[in-house]
């Protein structure tokens, strides 16, 4: 049997390869993601290992609440701590440094170098003595005056900086021009993941980051005979409790861990898309094996008459599947490196340098790739293989292969029941996930399970629905294209189950594309509607990177501009609700000017409430308050990022579902500054005086920002909306690219099915050619059939995707989501389906039109 399987695999080389392609993309994505994540993790371990190499103990301010994006820029601690550290027994040497990611290195146009929005940070650092310093200068020297700076070699290369160049750098204290004194790198020239480092003298670093008399970190070295652990314990005992004391090794692991956690999200996301591709591929494997096994019914029956057992037949088919899977795995692992290159290219296009020092293939990756490739193929081939066992020896003698009518019907009824159960189950799980309660993590898994059940169910049900839908889709083609259209329309309904499975593979990709399209459009619409309804001011001043804080001084200086009537700064800090431990993004508002610039939608209280907020009052976002059982009148204990604790009383509630002003809880901005040590603002709302020349006033604001605070920019309503849309569009584009791979897989599926089908219909094509069909007519016939199949998958997929998106938006209505269906999307998707269908048909159509008429007719 094994020998026969090998023969079969070999005899159908082309088909075996085409079938392997179905799983190849999925395996390549899995392997690539693992290779990438191993390599990135190793690189970050290496980088932070080097950074912390000479450090026995590292002391930093405590981060009590980390916030969504990992550690927040801290306010540092008083330099006097250094004396205390030096006084600890066993400290051989200790030094303090500034390490602050709130600067922007600017190019000659005043724009941040590197990616324009949301890129990796620019970090201000100050020199350390040996053995703590990890930067070594490869050109020039350390900055020695307040007007000099040093930069990392990768940024220098990217920007073409040379020693002596003048570069503008802006920070919390404003912008200043510096002369480049030297170019430095870490021990091995490790990548910083796209981040840029600028080194200043300690004094200048403190001035630029607005941290006079402070350090962000203190490093200590142990005297002989004292271990880092012992030293860490002694130092911790001597220092106040609001500092973190760790060994260098711990710090390295911690720092790398933070970045790796962030990257783990990407790994998970990529694996999700890989799983989708594998799933789509599984459909195609199933279909291909179903068709080939149907075509080989006679062969199986003959083997049965010769005494082969049913088990031997199954084993034979599965062995063939395993060989296809092995081929897919081998190609997939190689393709994985291509995937890594592609993902790196995409990320570097948006400014992130995924550091991958030495791409390696680890045994686990190889094993996982093989397991996925062979596993998916064998599992998908299992059902068709079992069908081979039902072939009765008698069928060897029957004229045409296949089961009897009754068999088909009985089989069909059971299939329909299973399909219906699966579909209903899928819908139920999805509905439960969307409308029930539960964590977001388990929700995603549940959603996945629900979708898989739904898709399989629909694919199986498809067999029933195909004739009607295909007939409807084919109608215009028949009307427009005559006999090739007529035959295509009929042929697409000939093997409904086959057409359904082929179309289903495409359906999955299209459903997800449409879902993402509609869902993201709804998010965009909601975001822009919020800006429309709540932002009553003229300008918002934000960081040019779109999310970092801006210097607090901006508010004061902009307020002094002619034509500006009011400026209302907003600041934020990660905080914890003490009892629940729930993490929130606490907002600090300036009660005086806010009401004039933001249209707060009060559900309890009024703008008066805001004016009377005081230092102990708070307002809540209604939806958040409902979810967290907080009511007006409650007293809420809060812990800020720096560990300070306060209690506030809830005085009012507003509806601000998208969190433009109040995401969860807002208190006075002065409390954030005085108690939680927040020095920066998140944004400033600016309102012009009535009758002021808007253009001139904005010009004045922009000029001030450009000259004093180049990392901030002003955005009017429309620009704010466009920013929101751009940010979402970028993510959507990446998702489309990844889903695109699944769509490509399903196009391969159409190619494969068509090719197999054409093999079956050689005689028919030969006859059509004999009675006068031109090659072109035959090609058209195949092409239209392909287009009908593609349209079938696309239309059903689009409907499924739309329904899912409507359900998801409905489920998230409380978050302020409003359904918005982009009109262009269905049109683009339909046109794409027609084009893909036509493309998939190119090869098969050519083969069909080239059948040798005589051979096709003589063959039995």
């Amino acid at each position, binding site marked *: 049997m094994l020998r026969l399987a090998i023969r079969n695999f070999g005899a159908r080389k082309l088909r075996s390869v085409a079938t392997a392609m179905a799983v190849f993309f999925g395996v390549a994505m899995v392997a690539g993601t693992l290779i990438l994540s191993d390599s990135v993790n190793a690189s970050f371990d290496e980088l932070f290992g080097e950074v912390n190499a000479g450090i026995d103990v590292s002391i930093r301010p405590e981060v009590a609440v980390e916030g969504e994006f990992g550690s927040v820029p801290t306010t540092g601690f008083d330099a006097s701590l250094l004396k205390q550290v030096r006084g600890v027994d066993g400290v051989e040497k200790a030094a303090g440094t500034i390490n602050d990611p709130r600067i922007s290195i600017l190019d000659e146009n005043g724009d941040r170098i590197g990616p324009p929005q949301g890129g990796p940070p620019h970090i201000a650092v100050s020199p350390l003595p040996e053995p703590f310093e990890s930067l070594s200068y490869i050109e020039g020297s350390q900055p020695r005056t307040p007007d000099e700076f040093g930069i990392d070699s990768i940024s220098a290369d990217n920007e073409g900086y040379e020693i002596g160049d003048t570069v503008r750098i802006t920070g919390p204290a404003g912008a200043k021009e510096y002369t480049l004194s030297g170019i430095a790198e870490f021990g091995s020239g490790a990548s910083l993941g796209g981040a840029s480092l600028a080194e200043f003298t300690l004094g200048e670093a403190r001035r630029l980051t607005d941290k006079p008399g402070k350090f962000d970190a203190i490093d200590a070295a142990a005297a002989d005979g004292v271990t880092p652990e012992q030293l860490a314990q002694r130092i911790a005992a001597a220092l106040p409790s609001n500092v973190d004391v760790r060994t260098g090794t711990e710090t390295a692991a911690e720092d790398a861990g933070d970045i790796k956690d962030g990257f783990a999200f990407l790994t998970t996301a990529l694996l999700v898309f890989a799983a989708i591709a594998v799933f789509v591929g599984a459909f195609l494997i199933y279909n291909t094996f179903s068709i080939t096994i149907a075509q080989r019914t006679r062969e199986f029956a003959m083997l049965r008459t010769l005494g082969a057992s049913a088990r031997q037949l199954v084993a034979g088919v599965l062995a063939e599947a395993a060989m296809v899977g092995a081929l897919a795995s081998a190609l997939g692992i190689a393709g994985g490196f291509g995937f890594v290159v592609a993902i790196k290219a995409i990320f570097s296009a948006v400014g992130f340098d995924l550091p991958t020092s030495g791409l390696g293939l680890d045994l686990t990756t190889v094993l996982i790739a093989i397991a996925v490739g062979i596993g998916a193929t064998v599992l998908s081939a299992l059902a068709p293989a079992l069908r081979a066992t039902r072939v009765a020896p008698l069928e060897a003698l029957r004229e045409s292969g296949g089961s009897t009518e009754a068999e088909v019907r009985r089989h069909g009824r059971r299939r329909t029941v299973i399909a219906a159960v699966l579909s209903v189950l899928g819908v139920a799980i999805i509905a439960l996930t969307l409308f029930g309660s539960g964590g977001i993590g388990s929700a995603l898994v549940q959603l996945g399970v629900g979708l898989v059940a739904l898709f399989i169910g629909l694919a199986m049900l498809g067999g029933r629905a195909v004739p009607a839908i295909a007939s409807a889709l084919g109608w215009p083609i028949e009307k427009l294209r*005559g*006999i090739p259209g007529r*035959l295509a329309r009929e042929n697409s309904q000939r093997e409904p189950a086959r057409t359904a499975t082929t179309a289903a593979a495409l359906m999955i990709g299209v459903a997800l594309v449409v879902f993402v399209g509609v869902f993201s459009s709804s998010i965009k619409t909601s975001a822009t509607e919020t800006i429309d309804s709540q932002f009553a001011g003229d300008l918002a001043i934000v960081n040019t990177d779109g999310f970092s804080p801006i210097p607090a001084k901006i508010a004061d200086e902009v307020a002094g501009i002619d034509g500006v009537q009011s400026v209302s700064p907003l600041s934020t800090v990660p905080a914890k609700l003490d009892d629940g431990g729930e993490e929130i993004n606490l907002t600090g508002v300036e009660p005086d000017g806010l009401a004039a610039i933001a249209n707060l939608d009060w559900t309890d209280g009024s703008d008066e409430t805001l004016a009377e907020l005081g230092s102990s009052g708070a307002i809540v976002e209604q939806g958040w308050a409902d979810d967290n059982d907080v009511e007006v009148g409650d007293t809420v204990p809060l812990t800020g990022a720096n560990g300070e604790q306060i209690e506030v009383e809830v005085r009012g509630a507003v509806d601000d579902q998208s969190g433009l002003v109040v995401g969860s809880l807002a208190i006075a901005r002065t409390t954030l500054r005085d108690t939680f040590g927040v020095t920066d603002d998140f944004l400033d709302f600016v309102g012009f005086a009535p009758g002021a020349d808007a253009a001139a006033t904005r010009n004045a604001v922009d000029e001030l920002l450009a000259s004093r605070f180049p990392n901030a920019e002003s955005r009017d309503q429309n620009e704010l909306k466009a920013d929101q849309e751009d940010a979402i569009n970028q993510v959507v584009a990446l998702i489309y690219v990844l889903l695109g791979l699944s769509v490509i897989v399903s196009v391969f599926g159409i190619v494969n099915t068509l090719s197999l089908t054409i093999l079956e219909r050689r005689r*028919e094509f030969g*006859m059509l050619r004999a*009675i006068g069909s031109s*090659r072109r007519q035959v090609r058209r016939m195949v092409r239209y059939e392909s287009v009908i199949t593609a349209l079938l998958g696309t239309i059903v997929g689009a409907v499924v995707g739309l329904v899912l998106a409507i359900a998801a938006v409905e489920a998230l209505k409380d978050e302020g989501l409003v359904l918005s269906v982009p009109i262009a999307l269905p049109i683009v998707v339909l046109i794409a389906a027609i084009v893909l269908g036509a493309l998939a048909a190119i090869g098969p159509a050519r083969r069909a039109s080239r059948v040798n008429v005589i051979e096709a007719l003589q063959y039995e």
Partner: protein
Amino acid sequence: MEAQAEMIVRCVDLRRRYGEGEAAVDALAGVTLDFPRGELTSIVGPSGSGKSTLMHVLAGLDRPTGGQVWVDGSEITALEDAELTRLRRDKLGFIFQFFNLVPVLSAEENVTLPLRIAGRDVDDGWLETLLDTVGIADRRTHRPAELSGGQQQRVAIARALISKPAVVFADEPTGNLDSTSSTHVLELLRRSVDELGHTVIMVTHDPRVAAYADRVVLLVDGGVSSDTSVASAEQVHELMQTA
């Protein structure tokens, strides 16, 4: 030239060789034949004698390795694929041993298929006449799978005649039929020649089938062994025995 016009199909010194060198087979080794309009001709011969090959080459389905073929006055041996397709579409009709109907089309649609492929209008009167003549008028909406072998072959005959072709080629048209169905099909072909004035060239190895023809051409080893007007099956049988 006058005589030529009456000859609907002509071939001169037709050769068809398969393979090369030692293993080469001459399926046709110089065949020269004329087929006049309005005649039913049988091509008979033992298995492997080149009957099918001759028909394929005459019909432009296969290219000869030597010699020339004229159909309805024009030489087809030099034609491009597209022109051959047009020739088949406009001037030729085919009947195959394995009926070769399109399974997804109804009987009537199968009959009108050549016209639809050619983009020509269906002559309803002629269609009715044909359906009546072949006796499937009441089965016109059935799909091939719902018809018996004999009925399917009768549909195929109607299909071959629908475009009023200059000549109909039939390869073993009764090869897959029982004797009743065979008789029916042969009578149909006979009538299409006698009553409708068609030209039919039919390949068979069955003497009884061949006896329906006006003329019997005997092929042996790729060459014409005899070319006669014979009356009975016995005579044809004898002819084939002597070969």
